[in-house]
């Protein structure tokens, strides 16, 4: 896999693997349930309670281990739903054009401009108590506000693909629209779809944590890092010096987000190679024994010189990309 050779992608994958591991085995590894009084209030980190205890005497380490699963499930589920929506809407709008395109584009733009978090809070405030703790429902509601960005990107990509010869050719030999879309257009959109999926998942993660933090969803079921942050804020963990209580879930959320963003960067560089520090970095140049200043528009490319002379370093050729 060419994409795995990218350092950013690899780092992102490894980080993500850690979080998947935590989601699968975290609850089993946790010494206690998340909400069970197992110690005195406000205990500092110790052998018995690695991360200390909360105001109520709950074990913070157990809360932490239990907190990953719900976030991961909701983020990825929401990412999947939103991506399916954006592929269907974006590709349809780009491929069929005309009135359908106008309508779908406007729909996407409206959803892009509407401030998502207040919108979600409004929706959630009307949900009955059972709805606020449903994983699937939360994922669905969040994806409602998450599909528009991907749809817009996919639409513009489809617009440019639609004019290509191979798509024309498929149309001329009498392929049906759905077949052209499924077998000619969509396969060429895979990197864009992957990028939009990661972006949406990242968005869903941040949004779900924010919704939990505000208390717009059921803060205890499913238990998540958002719940920890909610209670840490409500019980003034920072003022009481229990900084692990709010730092652990916060850093975890940030790292999970970073892993998704790194993967996304890797894919972006795969789509648009110019984004990479093209050719050689200054460090790489120095290692090759060359003194060279990066000039705009000129990408240094290292090539073995035709006649290898011992003392002479590799020849540097400047090419415009």
């Amino acid at each position, binding site marked *: 896999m060419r994409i795995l050779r990218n350092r950013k992608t690899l780092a992102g994958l490894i980080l993500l693997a850690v979080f998947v591991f935590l989601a699968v085995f975290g609850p089993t590894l946790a010494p206690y349930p998340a909400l069970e009084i197992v110690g005195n209030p406000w205990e500092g980190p110790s052998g018995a309670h690695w991360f200390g205890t909360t105001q109520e005497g709950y074990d913070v380490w157990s809360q932490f281990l239990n907190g990953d699963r719900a976030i991961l499930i909701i983020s990825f589920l929401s990412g999947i739903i939103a991506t399916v929506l954006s592929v269907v809407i974006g590709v349809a709008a780009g491929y069929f054009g005309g009135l359908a395109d106008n309508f779908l584009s406007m729909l996407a733009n409206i959803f892009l401009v509407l401030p998502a978090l207040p919108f979600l809070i409004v929706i959630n405030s009307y949900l009955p108590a059972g709805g606020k703790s449903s994983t699937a429902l939360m994922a669905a509601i969040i994806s409602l506000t998450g599909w528009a960005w991907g749809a817009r990107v996919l639409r513009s990509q489809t617009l440019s693909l639609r004019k290509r010869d191979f798509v024309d050719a498929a149309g001329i030999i009498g392929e049906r629209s759905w077949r052209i879309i499924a077998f000619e257009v969509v396969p060429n959109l895979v990197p864009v779809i992957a990028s939009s999926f990661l972006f949406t998942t990242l968005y869903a993660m941040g949004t779900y944590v924010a919704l939990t933090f*505000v208390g717009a969803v059921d803060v205890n079921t499913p238990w998540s890092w958002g719940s920890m942050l909610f209670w840490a804020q409500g019980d003034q963990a920072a003022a009481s010096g229990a900084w692990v209580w709010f730092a652990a879930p916060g850093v975890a*959320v940030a790292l999970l987000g970073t892993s998704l963003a790194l993967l996304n960067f890797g894919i972006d560089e795969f789509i648009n190679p*110019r984004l990479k520090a093209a050719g050689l970095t200054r460090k790489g140049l120095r290692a090759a024994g060359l003194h060279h200043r990066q000039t705009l528009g000129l990408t240094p490319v290292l090539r073995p010189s035709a006649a290898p002379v011992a003392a002479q370093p590799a020849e540097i050729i400047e090419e415009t990309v």
Partner: protein
Amino acid sequence: MYVLARRLAFYAVTAYVAVSVNFFLPHMMPGDPVETMIASSAGQLDQRSVAALKAQFGVGTGQSLWAQYWHYWGQLLQGNLGISISKYPSTVAQTIGSALWWTVILVGTATVISFILGTLIGALVGWRRGSMLDNILPVTTFFQAIPYFFLATVLLYLFAEKSHVFPNSDFKSYDTNNYVIGWNPGFVGSAVGHAVLPALTIVLASIAGWIVGMRNMMVTTMDEDYVLVAQAKGLPKSRVIWYAARNAVLPSISSFANALSFVVAGSLLTELVYSYQGIGSLLLNAVQSEDYPLIQGIFLIITFAVLAANLLADTVYVLLDPRTRQEA
């Protein structure tokens, strides 16, 4: 301006959709919002406010949904957003009005600082592609992934609790005990002092997006022929950077709309952590006390504010990019 007129029409449609969603949502949901509110207020509402609530949500008035919808629009155009339950007897409009300006000034200033600073840094990093500066990118990625409110908690912990650089614990928009709102130095100083940490939070959390966006566009723009020509003609380096940057900044401005939604969401939560007396704290209170009219009112006000900011960004775009003017 044809382009601006079209955008204006689009924002009008968006505002219309937001208002309609606001109206229809309570009617689509299971359960009776008015009953929930009366139950949660535990008998604190008097007969008149219950009647007003019922009228607002169209319970027991015997009107058709359509008639209620028109009634809702009529009320809205008169600036009547209903009464707030948690802040009873204040109306929603009064409650929002007293909180709105804190948020507008704080978030507006922080967003502008973040945009300008991020764009400048992004241009520099893009220009020096392949140098040490590229290492900024992974760092900004991490900052971008940190939830605003978590960053806020950390900053509050470090600068207000640990070292008392900024006013602590009972963080408000200003020192409510010693000053009154007005143009006196004591109040202004206090208000600015209280705004530094929240503003810093918003800038730190949102700047990464501008840096990465600008850097990526800068890298792409620098490969364009006109930049090569500018360099080959021997123009001073600053001129060349200026030419490249001026073109590279356009997508940043046009993606302002997407970014703003995130910034607004983050800022609301930031306010919450600092107990800043703006719209964000108000929204949290409204959610916790199930104050539906207030939640709805805040959603509408935020939507309108975001639309206005977008229109501003569009205007700037039209001024900067001659191609948009040519179309007309």
